[in-house]
């Protein structure tokens, strides 16, 4: 359809007033809410950090300084890498991958149960009990985890009472609390795409496979998982992106010696008062996660369109 007749039909269907409103609202959303902030960030990241008086002056030129810094550290040490930040960067991405895989492994059975096994009221109750905890503020939830995983928290008390541990284990220093908190933070974004995908699978297909002698493992790998692939990729993408970009959980649950990459970004913006470098760091994270998602999609033969289905 050519664009002209598309717009004519659009206005015919929605009327002039509503049609104009929709167009303006969508344009506002796309430009002001999505594109502009990102464009500012991109622009920021390629400029020197200057005191306000010099902004727009002769020194305010484009530079790769901040990206260079991320990789090589301060220019003084020639030929050396910025190992501190790069390590955090690598660790963040790796941990985000593991959190994503862990969430997938945890949520797939739950989503399958809700979508294909649980019936009616019981299933709805379970969905509700999954959602309700997320009515609580993200920061409160993180602090609750901190209390739970603390040296005097329920988990240590229980492990000590049952004799598994002799003395409290520092879950926070060892980052267990962080991974648990991150894993829990975006769990709904894994469950619901999986649930939607599995729910639309015809029960008869599962029964047909079973009737032909397939084991449960084969039924899942041959029938359910291929069918749910768009949901799996959509859930994994969201959890991965959000975990890599999470801030609250690492701030509250992270051990004293470990940093999440977003915390470095935050430091540049906040303590460092260097928004330009912060922008560059944020964009590095964004670009790398997008590239990783695209690579994963290529490997697993998922199309972008399917993911948003």
């Amino acid at each position, binding site marked *: 359809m050519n664009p002209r007749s598309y717009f004519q039909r659009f206005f015919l269907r929605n009327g002039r007033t509503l049609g104009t409103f929709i167009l303006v609202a969508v344009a506002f959303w796309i430009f002001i809410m999505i594109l502009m902030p990102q464009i500012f960030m991109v622009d920021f990241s390629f400029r020197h950090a200057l005191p306000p008086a010099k902004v727009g002056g002769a020194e305010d030129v484009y530079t790769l300084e901040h990206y260079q810094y991320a990789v090589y550290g301060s220019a003084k040490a020639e030929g050396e890498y910025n190992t501190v930040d790069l390590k955090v960067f690598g660790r963040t991405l790796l941990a985000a991958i593991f959190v994503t895989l862990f969430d997938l492994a945890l949520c797939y059975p739950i989503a399958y149960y809700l979508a294909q096994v649980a019936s009616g009221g019981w299933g709805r109750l379970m969905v509700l009990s999954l959602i309700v905890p997320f009515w609580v503020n993200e920061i409160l939830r993180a602090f609750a985890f901190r209390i739970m995983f603390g040296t005097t928290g329920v988990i240590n008390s229980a492990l000590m009472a049952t004799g598994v541990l002799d003395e409290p284990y520092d879950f926070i220093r060892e980052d267990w609390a962080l991974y648990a908190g991150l894993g829990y933070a975006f769990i709904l974004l894994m469950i619901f795409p999986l649930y939607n995908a599995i729910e639309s699978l015809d029960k008869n*297909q599962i*029964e*047909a496979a*079973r*009737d*032909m*002698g397939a084991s449960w493992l*084969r039924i899942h790998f*041959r029938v359910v998982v291929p069918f749910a692939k768009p949901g799996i990729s959509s859930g994994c993408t969201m959890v991965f992106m959000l975990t890599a970009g999470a801030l609250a959980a690492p701030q509250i649950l992270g051990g004293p010696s470990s940093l999440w990459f977003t915390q470095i970004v935050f430091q540049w913006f906040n303590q460092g008062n260097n928004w330009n470098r912060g922008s560059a760091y944020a964009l590095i994270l964004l670009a790398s996660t997008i590239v990783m998602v695209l690579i994963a999609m290529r490997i697993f033969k998922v199309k972008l369109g399917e993911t948003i289905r």
Partner: protein
Amino acid sequence: MSADVQLDGVWIKFGDFVAARDVNIQIKEGEFFSFLGPSGCGKTTLLRAVSGFLEPSDGTVRIGGDDMAGIGPNKRPTALIFQNLALFPLMTVWENIAFALEVRGVRRAERRKKAEELLELIALPGQGDKMCHELSGGQRQRVAIARALCAEPDVLLLDEPLSALDLKLRQHMRTELRAIQQRVGITFIYITHDQGEALTMSDHVAVMREGIIEQVADGSTLYDRPETAFVASFVGENNLFRGRVAEVTGEQAVVDTNVGPIRARMATHEGEAQLKPHEEAFVFVRPESLKFVNGGEFDNAIQAQIHQQEFEGNLWQVFLDVANSDKRIKMSLVNDGRSLGHETGSDVTIGFKAELAVALPQGPLAAE
């Protein structure tokens, strides 16, 4: 290999709801057996009990003489063809067909070969690399059959497999199914609400109503010798007269009805006559058993006026209003090239022989 199937005193309950009530059926090996009944009478439920997706609340299911209690659907020698086919949409046609072999760990080349053989059998040679959605409804139907046959079951279970097809294809597939069954020689258990399908394909048909087996017989027996009012009203068309038995003589009874006394053959069940004098009864007469009385010999005669005549090519359908009653009856006459000889609105006498009318105890009737 083929196996017989035996249902002994099978009850299936969902809470208080009884979906199958004391079902006793013997299905011989290698036969084409159908369950026929209106939608919701429990056919699918019974089939699921045979395939193992459901355990009967009571009674036993035997396949090849073995009690199937506690044996899951993946371990039974049955293959089920689902009402909606349930082909795997993300596999090619040949992968669908060979799925049962994949499950058994058969090598790919061998699976492919077997799939091609089955594609040959269902007249779709060389179509193995297509996806299922690229096939027509009838072709998908046949792929589902091939997929089930590939498991080499002793018993093939078919749940209204033709209901999604259009009329022409449905009639073609009846012949096809019957031919496939004769070629592979295994037991087919077929479920349908379409009496045409059941009567044309089956060796034996069990007529079901609300979880009860009303009668098990071959097609012509069901049509000519129904044992219950439900079977008489469900299978084929029938004119129904209500009345009370006036007298019983040998195998015949005279029933006083609102169109006068009718002499009819008494239905028997296991050799026993089912009616006694003064009992309430139904008399059923098929439209094709009625004739115009032109001096011939008839046991029964009814005065009526022709209400309407419909020409159907091979048949004349004549609707008649019985004199002195509000009863309307239907008569079917073979078109022998001559005109009917009677005008619409004219008064006629119609007659029928006693052995072509059947008297039955009153009971539930099939919904119109």
